[in-house]
């Protein structure tokens, strides 16, 4: 094969078949994908199902702590998991720019394969398109995931109730700052790594061993602040969080302070919010902290009646302020 992606590879002809066989089947192959039929044949999924789709575009393709491939697997697996489901199958569509480095593509597909194996999902169907140079930025990946819901009732952003405890699974802002810093060529004393990882292992444990989770939600784009606002608004509740209980890596805090950014608005790709009755909070925290995906888990606040859809931050000094939703992109400031 050529060392660059050619338009031929998306033609559907021999060149496409070679790419599928030598690359995609090599790394992602399995009983369903290997059949090379027009659709995936799935016979073992019954009961309530969760399905989610997401398209991934990130610059740079490789960043500290991950790459677009692992991100595309984790992102969709996590979205399925947030509905209280056990993710099982993924579809995967690649949109490639002509001229993309084949080695980069191979590294990304390999990384997807590892990520899928680690979170116990299989890629069962896929698609590849190649567009002329300039029509896309290197590569976009779409993944769709499906899984069986094991929680009854399923968690939902609209189920937060007065008195519920608000838990987060770890530090905030790592992914957003890692990507931004890498993109801008900024370096800090210690490397900040993206937190991109699968969360389904831990969320399934929580459902099975603690139960009665009202809300799972991963604070990706828009960060913790935006996600909490979504939940408050969907549930018609007010949420109060304590600034001093929100874990943030020191390097992330310092980097944000330098760039004029707020870690509570930065994206996370391996963290989730869990809202459940206060009586279950301690058990849930203990379980989370014993799992690699929840080592720094913390109880950060509570749900209450009050002003519907509002999130209040109690500051370290004991004052209060609104924790509003992110408006647009966060932009570094002048001074």
């Amino acid at each position: 094969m050529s060392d660059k992606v050619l338009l031929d590879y998306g033609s559907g002809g021999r060149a496409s078949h070679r790419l599928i066989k030598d690359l995609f089947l090599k790394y992602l192959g399995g009983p369903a994908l290997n059949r090379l039929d027009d659709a995936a044949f799935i016979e073992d999924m019954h009961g309530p199902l969760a399905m989610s789709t997401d398209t991934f575009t990130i610059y740079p393709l490789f960043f500290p702590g991950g790459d677009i491939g692992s991100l595309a697997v984790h992102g969709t697996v996590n979205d399925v998991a947030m509905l209280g489901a056990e993710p099982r199958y993924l579809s995967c569509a690649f949109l490639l720019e002509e001229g993309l480095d084949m080695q980069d593509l191979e590294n990304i597909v390999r990384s997807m394969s590892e990520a899928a194996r680690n979170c116990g999902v299989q890629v069962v169907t896929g698609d590849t398109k190649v567009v002329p140079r300039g029509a896309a930025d290197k590569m976009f990946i779409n993944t769709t995931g499906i899984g069986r819901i094991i929680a009854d009732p399923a968690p939902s952003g609209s189920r937060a109730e007065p008195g519920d405890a608000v838990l987060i699974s770890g530090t905030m802002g790592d992914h957003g700052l890692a990507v931004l810093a890498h993109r801008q060529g900024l370096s800090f004393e210690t490397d900040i790594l993206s937190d991109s990882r699968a969360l389904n292992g831990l969320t399934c444990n929580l459902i099975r061993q603690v139960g009665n989770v009202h809300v799972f939600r991963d604070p990706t784009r828009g960060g913790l602040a935006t996600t909490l606002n979504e939940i408050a608004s969907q549930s018609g509740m007010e949420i109060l969080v304590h600034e001093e209980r929100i874990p943030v890596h020191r390097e992330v805090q310092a980097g944000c302070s330098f760039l004029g950014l707020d870690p509570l608005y930065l994206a996370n790709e391996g963290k989730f919010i869990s809202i459940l009755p206060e009586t279950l909070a301690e058990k849930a925290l203990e379980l989370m902290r014993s799992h690699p995906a929840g080592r720094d888990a913390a109880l950060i606040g509570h749900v209450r009646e009050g002003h519907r859809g509002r999130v209040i931050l109690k500051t370290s000094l004991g004052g209060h302020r609104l924790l509003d939703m992110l408006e647009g992109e966060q932009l570094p400031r002048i001074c």
Partner: protein
Amino acid sequence: MVWVLNFINKFKDPELCRNILEKIRNEATTPFRFMEVCGTHTVAIFQSGIKTLLPENISHISGPGCPVCVTHDREVAAFLALAEQGVQLATFGDLMRVPGPYGRSLKSVQADGGRIQVVYSPFDALQLALDNPGEKVVFLGVGFETTAPAVAATLKVAREQGVKNFFVLSMHKLVPPALQALAMERDIRVDGLLLPGHVSTIIGVQPYFFLASDYGMPAVITGFEPLDILQSILILLHQKKDGRIRIVNNYKRAVADQGNPKALAVMNEVFVPADARWRGLGNIPGSGLLLREEFSEFDAWKAFDPKTEDVQALPGCRCGQVLKGQILPDECPLFRNKCTPASPVGPCMVSTEGSCAAFFKYFV
């Protein structure tokens, strides 16, 4: 290592802050209004919750110390015109959303194909010019004394290297002349000023002396942590009580009394003070910086002569009064209605450090 928000240093220590707050409560026997000049202070006061912790008879208003907010409509019109001419612009990020004539902004011009690169320092902008010798790169020079020296140093490097495709559209502004304009306002209602920490690291203490000597206005150079701000408020209250009005440097860990002579020298070598228009405040003599004759080859105003048509300000916008502390943001009829961070009308809603934006974002 995991830290919890806001415990990085002793200037955020809640215990120390509570002590000072207690003293402020004891001192604040009569109503007192202070103005923070710097947008970073505005955000810190809201963000830390200080606003909700001060006794009721202490109120604060946010002054004109956000460089984005005070960039004048005519200046915005000028750089949008440059972007539409197809020149490569390099800018600090927070200028991207500033609305200009007809609701246009750099963001919308960019969506239409305008070439705009967000940079973190003027040197990045110069690098952009060096990397693209066939392009004309214009850096949008917005900011106070904090930013101007770095731009000046960049221009010196550009001249030494004989760069021909790098330009600066200087819209820099100077803080002391604006403070003088505020102090001269007859209907100004301010009992004391928190002076900007970053600007003071460059200019030092002396340029503020006139505030105390000519206008009887107490003022304290202040850092940006909660403890800095609370201490400075306490100093202002003390001055009011004992009647000894003076300028105090309460940010000695960063601000030398004489400022930064090297930075001042390079700034003066490249720039010359000129009259400037401020959004909300109007024309203020000697409050802007233009490139000196020796650097005129880099002057984007001269090289491109962008149009600075006069634009009609939106009727009803009361940013001018907000900037002078005459009204609070929510007393403006546009606030939260026509004017929001998503579609800002006035300067104070534009930047994240603007007083209306901070009020909108944080006020409970």
